[in-house]
């Protein structure tokens, strides 16, 4: 059962969430990334996500496996969109079920942080002034 997937079209949250319900789970944390209308001071009109699909899926699975090993959680799942997105569209969804909320929150945060840092997906933004750019963030300074 894959825990990380890429989606080429908009997807429903409800069945993803339902698949994480467990009788022993009292806590559920989720995170969503939405397309913002601005980024670093520029008006954004839309964007596109591109992935190196084979490696993104393998690396995404590794992130989810690490979360399941590292935190006291029941289950977890992450779906990331690729293709064209509009303002307000959901770009990524992370859901985590756990016995208690500490682990649910910590694992949810871990997954989104690691996915953003490691999974080969790239964002291409189109700006109000007609320009467009690939985002290749600088590494955080020590």
């Amino acid at each position: 059962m894959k825990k990380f997937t890429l989606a080429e079209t908009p997807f429903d949250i409800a069945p993803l969430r339902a698949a994480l319900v467990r009788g022993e789970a009292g806590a559920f944390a989720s995170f969503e990334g939405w397309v913002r209308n601005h980024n670093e001071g520029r008006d954004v009109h839309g964007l596109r996500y591109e992935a190196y699909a084979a490696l993104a899926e393998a690396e995404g699975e590794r992130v989810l496996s690490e979360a399941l090993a590292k935190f006291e959680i029941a289950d977890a799942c992450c779906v990331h969109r690729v293709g064209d997105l509009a303002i307000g569209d959901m770009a990524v969804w992370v859901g985590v079920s756990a016995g208690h909320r500490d682990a649910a929150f910590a694992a949810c945060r871990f997954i989104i942080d690691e996915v953003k840092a490691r999974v080969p997906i790239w964002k291409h933004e189109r700006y109000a002034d007609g320009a467009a750019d690939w985002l290749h963030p600088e590494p955080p300074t020590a």
Partner: protein
Amino acid sequence: MTQVTVLYFASLRDAAGMTSETIGSDASDLRGLYETLQARHGFVLPVGRLRVAVDGAFARWEEPLREGSEVAFIPPVSGG
């Protein structure tokens, strides 16, 4: 000469003007391969800001080229 297929993504694809190419290279390792292609295509990103993958798995820059393998240069990611 080792024959490899190189995949380009994001700004590297825009700069190369292609999604992939199959080339023969004398480079002794993956780092050398990138440097050759960087000069040819005018890639702005230095090797230190990239990762490299071979046949769908992350690899080390010091690895030699393998005949018939698929090499991908991974620019800084921006998903999420």
